[in-house]
């Protein structure tokens, strides 16, 4: 313990003296996408959210957890807005460990809407071990946890390339021009036609990347639509009140010889 502490101290001192900037590493600026959820009144594209959930379920969820979401969230307003029956069916398609029962045993049962998203691995260590030592990050708030947000996530998903000459990659490491340092341990999991979208949309890599990024943006900020709507109302209210108070102030101060 003491040894670990000392090494931390050394790291800190080193950091103080020569902080290496994040952005000095090689990486290309993320692609700017005109997301529907941008701007003051931005909302999510409902169909894209539903397709994005499908991409998550069929591709991402085999490695990435989303432990802070519940299946019920999928039916809530401002989200993918699946119907109640659909949410129940989605939840039921997952095996949830519950218990202990009256005999003290854990048991599995079909998921319910109130259950949290089932994680693909029992813990971080197991997730890392199954993925060549690299822990696939939980995706609940991933869009908020990366500089560049949705643009960055989308760019990484479509940014796989053959490494330029001179760059050698270890086993299980891939070249991605938008990733910091250009090296990523997640393989390119998207290919054209990989998914049969329920709504018949053609599943190009670009389409899937956009859909799943939209889904992740909602997962990170499920309150976004309500926040935007409330914000517009609050600001309009404040501007009206400010105007009234300003006029009252002018009236009151007209009694003295000072400009206000």
């Amino acid at each position, binding site marked *: *313990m*003491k040894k*670990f*502490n000392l090494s*931390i*101290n050394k*790291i*800190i*001192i080193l*950091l*103080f*003296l*020569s*902080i*290496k*900037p*994040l952005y*000095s*590493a090689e990486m290309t600026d993320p692609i700017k996408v005109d997301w529907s959820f941008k701007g*003051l009144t931005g909302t999510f594209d409902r169909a894209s959210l539903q397709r994005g959930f499908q991409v998550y379920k069929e591709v991402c969820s085999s490695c990435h957890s989303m*432990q*802070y*979401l519940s299946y019920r*969230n999928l039916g809530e307003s401002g989200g993918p807005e699946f119907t109640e029956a659909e949410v129940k069916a989605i939840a039921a398609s997952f095996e949830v460990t519950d218990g202990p029962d009256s005999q003290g045993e854990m048991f599995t049962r079909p998921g319910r809407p109130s259950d949290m998203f089932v994680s693909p691995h029992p813990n971080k260590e197991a997730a890392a071990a199954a993925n060549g030592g690299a822990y696939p*990050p*939980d995706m*609940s*708030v991933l869009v*908020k*946890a*990366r*500089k560049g*947000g949705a643009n960055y996530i989308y760019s990484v998903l479509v940014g796989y390339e053959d490494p330029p000459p001179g760059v050698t990659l270890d086993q299980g490491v891939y070249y991605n021009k938008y990733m*910091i340092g250009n090296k990523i341990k997640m393989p390119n999991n998207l290919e054209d036609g990989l998914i049969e979208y329920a709504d018949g949309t053609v599943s190009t890599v670009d389409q899937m990347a956009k859909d799943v990024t939209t889904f992740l943006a909602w997962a*990170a900020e*499920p*309150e976004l639509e309500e*926040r*935007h709507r*409330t*914000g*517009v109302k*609050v*600001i309009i209210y*404040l*501007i009206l*009140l*400010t105007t009234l*108070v*300003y006029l*009252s*102030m002018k009236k*009151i*101060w007209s009694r*003295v*010889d*000072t400009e*206000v």
Partner: protein
Amino acid sequence: MSDHEYIPKSKAAKWFNDRLPLLTLGAHLTDYPTPKNLNYWWTFGGILTFCLITQIVTGIVLAMHYVAHADLAFGSVEHIMRNVNYGWLIRYIHSNGASMFFLAVYIHIFRSLFYGSYKSPREIIWILGLMIYLLMMAAAFLGYVLPWGQMSFWGATVITNLFSAIPLVGESITTWLWGAYSVDNPTLNRFFSLHYLFPFLILGLVVLHIWALHIPGNNNPVGIDIKKPSKDTVPFHPYITIKDAFALLVFMIIFAGFVFFTPNVLGHSDNYIPANPLVTPAHIVPEWYLLPFYAILRSVPDKLGGVILMFSAIFILFVLPWLDTSKVRSAVFRPIYRQFFWILVVDVLMLGYVGAMPAEGVYLVLARVGTIYYFLHFIVVLPVVGLLEKTDPIPMSISEPVMTGGAEPSLARKLNEKV
């Protein structure tokens, strides 16, 4: 305190007021004679009171749902964001509220520097204000640790490690602060406890700050002593209350803009990654309001030297009233000081900028130049300029134009003779 005796109208009110003169206090606060020429830079006191109350109220609600445990804190914040009714709104008000609080306090402090509000007889108000500012920085730092993200953890590690620079006992003090051999669950627990305590200490100091203010009364843009009450003053209510309300509402529009439309822009994306003691973020930066001090800290190659300099940068402000030798308060009548004031503003902004940049190359040079200038301003510029500067003529009162002369010799005339 009040200039005229307040007599309650009803018998019951009189009975109560004789025993606890709350009504007298209320009357004093509403009648309080205030210079009529206060500009909008003077509205930030009220805005700061609003900020403090907002932080306390939202903070108390957040504490009802937050769990101060290293394994659960991050998840409990997500629980607030997702499952608590309007939890996202309360948390975003609280996190952006900290930034708005500092924005307002920096304007408030620089207003004081410009108009000489720290000078006699207002030194105690100034010192109380600095104590509030120190506690605010501590509270903000402690609060930033609570979500237990990567920046929380590593920010806490960096700041607590500053104490290890103290010779001989530094390591022991750091371990004592942590309650462990590194930043860990005991650290988070005590930080939460202290984060809940500090705002109430601030509140107490605010009461003293306002009490001390009400003894000499407000300074004003002209910086002269005024007779109270007189034609130079207006009663606090309704004149100042309505003006403060207007300024506060404008401030709230900006505040709401952050909360509703870009709630995370002032934070760091790494803090949405759960704390991991084994992975150091590539670039540890404090919140924006601490950046100038961070730049000063890093401008010194020696750790202990950096820590001493950083704390000196704050503590030098405590002796500011005695470093400034000028008898004229307002920079409006100080043509030389006025220019140095703006250079200081630019210097602090530059230090803030380089504090966010890596401490190398040109940024390190700028940080060192900025740091040296910061101290020069207080140790050399202020005393020397105060002695040598030829100040502009000062008006006798707020109502009268410059130097027409009043019925009675005012302080202004005496000052003009002196300079």
